C-alpha cells in the first residue's frame, strides 16, 4: 500500500559527499543516529557553559525520543530537570532564565503542543530586545521540538508548524536534515545570541545514521547548502523532506533532468543569496515541505525569488507540499508530498 512505499524511502542514508557538496567538516566520526547526535550536542553545550540548562517534559530520564539521555546523571538535577505539563509556563520560564544571562534549552515534547507557548514566543521572546532598547534580551533561549510526519502520527504527532514561526521577526528558525548537521546546528543555535526555535525531524531520530565527528563543532546559521549540483532545476527544502527530494532528483536524472538540491537549514533568516544564485543558473525553482501548501514557508521563498529572479525564470515556481487539510490519520500517504508528486512537478516545470 502507499503507506509502505512512503516509509521505505525514509530508510535511505544521507546524501553522499560526491555531488560538489560544501561541508563544514569532512572528518569522519562515529556513525550516530539523529537523537544520539543531538544528545552529543547537548552534552557538549552543557559541558562548555556552566550556565546552561536543559528542561522540559520528561527530559530527566532521557526524554521520549532519548535526546536527553545521560544529561541529568552527568550534570545533575539542578541543570537538567523535568517540568510539569504546561508549555506556556515552560517557555515563559525559559525566557526568564535567558533574560538573566543563562542558556535555556527548552524541550517541547512535540511541535504539535507548542501552541500554548506561541504567545510567549511571539510576544515575549521575539520582542524582548527590541522593546527594551537592547537593555534586556533572551538570546540564550533555544526551544527544541520534534516535528513532522512519522508514518502514523495522526493529527497531533505529525505537524510542521515552522511557517507560523517564520513570520515572527526577532526569533530564528532552524531545521537540520541529518545527524551531522543537527549536532553542529544545535550547538550554533544554543550559542547564538538570539532566541531560536529548533525543529527536529522526528522521523529521522532513528532512521537517519551518519558519521558524526565527536568533537565540538558548529555549523553557521543562515547559510544554505547546495547538497547536490545540477543545471536544469533548483529544488529547495529542509529537514526530512530532503531525503524524499533526493530520491526524486535521482529519478529525474535517469530521465535526463539535472537537479540542484539546496538545504535551507535556517528558515528565518533564510539565505536568499544562495537560492537566488542557483535559480539564476537553472531558471526553475521547486520548493517542497510537509506543511500545508497555503501559507507555508514555500510561499515566502517563491515570492522572494520571483522578485529577485523574474527575468531568469523559465517556468512558474512550483510548490509540492502537504494538502490544505489537517494532518490526517489514515490518509497520510495521500497528504504527504511524496517522491512521485515531486518528480511529476519537476517534469512539468522543466517542460513548461
Amino acid at each position, binding site marked *: 500500500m502507499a503507506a509502505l512505499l512512503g516509509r521505505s524511502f525514509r530508510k535511505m542514508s544521507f546524501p553522499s559527499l560526491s555531488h560538489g557538496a560544501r561541508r563544514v567538516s569532512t572528518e569522519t566520526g562515529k556513525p550516530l543516529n539523529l537523537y544520539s547526535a543531538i544528545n552529543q550536542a547537548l552534552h557538549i553545550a552543557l559541558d562548555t557553559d556552566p550556565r546552561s540548562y536543559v528542561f522540559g517534559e520528561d527530559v530527566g530520564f532521557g526524554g521520549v525520543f532519548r535526546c536527553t539521555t545521560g544529561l541529568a546523571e552527568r550534570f545533575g538535577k539542578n541543570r537538567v530537570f*523535568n517540568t*510539569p*505539563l504546561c508549555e*506556556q509556563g515552560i517557555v515563559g520560564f525559559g525566557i526568564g532564565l535567558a533574560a538573566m544571562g543563562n542558556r535555556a534549552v527548552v524541550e517541547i515534547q512535540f511541535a504539535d503542543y507548542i501552541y500554548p507557548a506561541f504567545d510567549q514566543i511571539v510576544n515575549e521572546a521575539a520582542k524582548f530586545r527590541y522593546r527594551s532598547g537592547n537593555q534586556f534580551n533572551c538570546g540564550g533561549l533555544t526551544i527544541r521540538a520534534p516535528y513532522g510526519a512519522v508514518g502514523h502520527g495522526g493529527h497531533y*504527532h505529525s505537524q510542521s508548524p515552522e511557517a507560523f514561526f517564520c513570520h515572527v521577526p526577532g526569533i530564528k528558525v532552524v531545521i537540520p536534515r541529518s545527524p551531522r548537521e543537527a549536532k553542529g546546528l544545535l550547538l550554533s543555535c544554543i550559542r547564538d545570541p538570539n532566541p531560536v526555535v529548533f525543529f527536529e525531524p522526528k522521523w529521522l531520530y532513528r532512521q537517519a545514521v551518519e558519521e558524526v565527528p565527536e568533537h565540538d563543532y558548529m555549523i553557521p546559521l543562515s547559510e544554505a547548502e547546495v547538497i547536490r549540483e545540477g543545471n536544469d532545476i533548483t529544488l529547495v527544502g529542509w529537514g526530512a523532506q530532503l531525503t524524499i527530494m533526493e530520491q526524486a532528483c535521482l529519478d529525474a536524472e535517469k530521465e535526463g533532468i539535472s537537479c540542484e538540491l539546496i538545504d535551507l537549514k535556517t528558515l528565518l533568516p533564510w539565505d536568499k543569496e544562495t537560492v537566488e544564485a542557483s535559480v539564476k543558473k537553472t531558471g526553475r525553482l521547486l520548493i517542497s515541505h510537509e506543511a500545508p501548501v497555503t501559507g507555508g514557508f514555500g510561499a515566502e521563498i517563491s515570492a522572494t525569488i520571483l522578485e529577485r529572479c523574474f527575468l531568469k525564470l523559465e517556468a512558474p515556481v512550483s510548490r509540492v507540499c502537504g494538502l490544505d487539510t489537517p494532518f490526517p*490519520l489514515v490518509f497520510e500517504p495521500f*497528504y504527504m508530498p511524496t517522491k512521485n508528486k515531486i518528480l511529476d512537478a519537476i517534469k512539468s516545470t522543466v517542460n513548461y
Partner: protein
Amino acid sequence: MALSRLSSRSNTFLKPAITALPSSIRRHVSTDSSPITIETAVPFTSHLCESPSRSVETSSEEILAFFRDMARMRRMEIAADSLYKAKLIRGFCHLYDGQEALAVGMEAAITRKDAIITSYRDHCTFIGRGGKLVDAFSELMGRKTGCSHGKGGSMHFYKKDASFYGGHGIVGAQIPLGCGLAFAQKYNKDEAVTFALYGDGAANQGQLFEALNISALWDLPAILVCENNHYGMGTATWRSAKSPAYFKRGDYVPGLKVDGMDALAVKQACKFAKEHALKNGPIILEMDTYRYHGHSMSDPGSTYRTRDEISGVRQVRDPIERVRKLLLSHDIATEKELKDMEKEIRKEVDDAVAQAKESPVPDASELFTNMYVKDCGVESFGADRKELKVTLP
C-alpha cells in the same frame, strides 16, 4: 534510585477493600431492583463543601450492570492491545483498563442529557455513553463505520446523541470547552450538567485555572473531574505538582476526593456533584484511580513504576474484582454465573472485532470532507496545483 522511592509511596495505592456485609438472603439474579445500601470502603474528603454520605443506595440490578459493563470495557481494552500489537490499530492508543469504575459509576448517576467531555483516554467513556463495541473497534482501525467515520482514531471518539463531546488529543484543551458546554446548558435552562474530565498531568495546565475562574464567576454547572491515576505519562504526581491534592486546587471552588476504583463511590460523588453544580456552580471531583497499561501502547509502563505496584493495585483495588466480591457476598450471583457472563462478553467483543475488521476504510475523497461548511468554495491543491484539485464542499 527513583524506583525505590516509588515503591514506598505505592503503599498509598493499596487501601484494603472492606465491604459491609448485611445478612445474606438469596436474591434473584439481575432483575431485582429493590434497594440495597452499601458503605463505601474509603471515606470522601471534601474541600469547601460537605461530603456526601458513605452509604450508597443501589440495587442488585445496578451492581450486576456495573460488573457487566466494566467487564466489557476491560475486554475491549485488552482486545485493543492485541490489535495494536498486530498493527491493525496504528497511531496512538491510550488504554483505560483499571479506570473502568469511573466510566460506569458516572453513568449511573447522570442522564444522557448531561454532557461528558474527556481527554484521549476515551474508549471506555464512549462505551459508557452507549457507544457500540463495533463502532469503537472500527474507529480504532480507521474504518468508515467507526464513530468518527474513521477520521479521528483512538483519541477522537464522539457520540452526539449521547452528549459525549469526545476525545481530545491536546492535554487540558477540553477543560475550557467543557465549561463552555456548561454555559450553554445553563443558558438553555437544560437542568443538565457537564463533566469535564482531565488527568493529573493536565491539572498543571494554565487553561484549567482560567476555566475554573470563569465557571465560578458565572456559576456554571460544570463538574471538573480529575482522573488522578498518579502518573502524567511517566511522571509521578509528586514530581510534577507542588500540591497533589487536586480537589483543593480550585481554591475557591469546592472539591471532593473520591476512591475512583469503587464504582459505587464514584456514583455517589457524581450524584452529589450534579446536585451541587445545578444549585451552586462548579465543583472539582478528584478520582483516585489507576491505569494498568502504560500511558499509551508505546509506553511499557514499567520504567517509572514497579511491577509490584501494578500487580498490588490489581490484587487489592481492582474495580471489577471489587464488584465481583460484592455480588458474591450479597448472593446476587454465583461464581459460575459471573464466569459465564464474562465468557459471553468475551465472545461479544471478539465478534465486534471480527465485524470491525471487515469494514472498509474511508474513501480517499474523505480526505477533503468536513473541513468547512458548504459554500466556502475554498480550493485545496495537490502537488504543483496542476493535479489533484478539489473544491472543498
